[in-house]
């Protein structure tokens, strides 16, 4: 009798907790969404429950601003970073996991230490470097900045995952007649898929959301990313287009939501693996 009661109590608390979490997560999203549908410019007049809705902010985004252009720029940068940094990270992680070379230990330690400094510390250096090589105000430059910055964390994660794959698999493949390249692509990469997807998705989301480096590197208006373009709507003295901003923000969330839904299983696996071995 008492055990049944305590079980019910526990259930009630669990559900209460979950419901609270859902409210905390969804409340701001609901506001942004409703704000994007409210006519008028100010969020303070927005009501969460109202029937007075319009799509005029979305129309404004597409008609009056360069929203599509920004979207395309951001997509390009995010996809480029995803591909490039996944290649970097996987090859670095594999080398650190499987090869014994001079400086391996110190290399790993260096990456671990570097990771602890916030990336803003390198901003001036990055700016000067890009200026020297003439990549300032280019998307390639920005992609390189993101991809390079993602290596330390990702390489550790992938190295840890590769460490967990038995060496005998590679040896068996070598006896079977595989060279280094075949071992890597036919045996190791397929086995490391969960962590690779995790790294790839992470490196997509980073640039997609980033504001600081995009602002630093990109200066001309036609190269703006979503983050900069949207933020410009609500900063400055006369820019108070909070509702247009909300509409833009709602659309920004779409690709990431799709990515998460598609790769949810892999992301969870990757997180777990990272927790165990990274």
């Amino acid at each position, binding site marked *: 009798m008492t055990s049944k009661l305590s079980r019910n109590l526990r259930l009630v608390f669990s559900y209460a907790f979950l419901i609270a979490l859902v409210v905390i997560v969804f409340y701001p999203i609901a506001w942004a969404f409703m704000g994007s549908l409210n006519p008028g410019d100010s969020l303070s007049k927005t009501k969460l429950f109202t029937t007075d809705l319009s799509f005029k902010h979305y129309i404004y985004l597409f008609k009056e601003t360069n929203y599509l252009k920004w979207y395309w720029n951001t997509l390009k940068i995010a996809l480029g970073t995803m591909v490039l940094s996944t290649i970097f990270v996987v090859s670095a992680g594999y080398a650190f996991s499987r090869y014994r070379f001079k400086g391996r230990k110190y290399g790993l330690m260096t990456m671990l230490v570097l990771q602890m400094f916030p990336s803003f510390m390198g901003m001036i250096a990055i700016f000067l470097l890009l200026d020297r090589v003439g990549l300032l105000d280019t998307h390639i430059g920005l992609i390189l900045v993101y991809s390079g910055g993602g290596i330390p964390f990702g390489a550790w994660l992938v190295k840890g995952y590769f460490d967990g794959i038995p060496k005998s698999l590679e040896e068996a493949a070598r*006896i079977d007649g595989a060279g280094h390249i075949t071992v890597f692509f036919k045996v190791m990469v397929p086995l490391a898929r969960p962590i690779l997807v995790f790294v790839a998705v992470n490196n997509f989301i980073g640039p997609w959301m980033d504001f600081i480096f995009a602002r630093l590197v990109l200066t001309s208006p036609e190269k703006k990313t979503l983050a900069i373009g949207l933020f410009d709507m609500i900063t400055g003295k006369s820019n108070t287009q909070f509702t247009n901003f909300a509409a833009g923000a709602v659309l920004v969330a779409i690709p990431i939501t799709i990515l998460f839904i598609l790769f949810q299983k892999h992301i969870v696996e990757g997180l777990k693996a990272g927790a165990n071995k990274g």
Partner: protein
Amino acid sequence: MAEITLNGIQKQYEGDQAPSVTDFNLDISNGELIVFVGPSGCGKSTTLRMIAGLEDITDGTLSINGNVVNQTPPKERDIAMVFQDYALYPQMSVYDNMAFGLKLRKYDKSEIKERVENAAKILGLTPYIDRKPKALSGGQRQRVALGRHRSESEGVLDG
């Protein structure tokens, strides 16, 4: 057809004080079945791994069919090895596991199929040919590991 000759084989791991294998001499003629027995850590696996080419030989010569193969990479030695943990490729089916080496050695598709199916029949693996190693019992996995090599070459080292 294979003869293996070990002549004064020695293995010294870096950082170890004593060598793991010292002055090991052995002639194995064709078709002969050899068993290494000994306490753990006495160098049985190390010797096998040297014959397979997975470990460098510190000193001495190893010849297969009269050719010294100390520097030959594993894939050119035409040997096969069953690992202690079987080392089956988890992402491949039983068929692909057994066909992997043949594919890398560029056999015809039809010949691969014939060899693999033949090996599977001998080992009683035909009903499981499309399964992944995860869905097999321990004994079945061991047989796949054997079959992976039986389908490919003559000499087998069982680690």
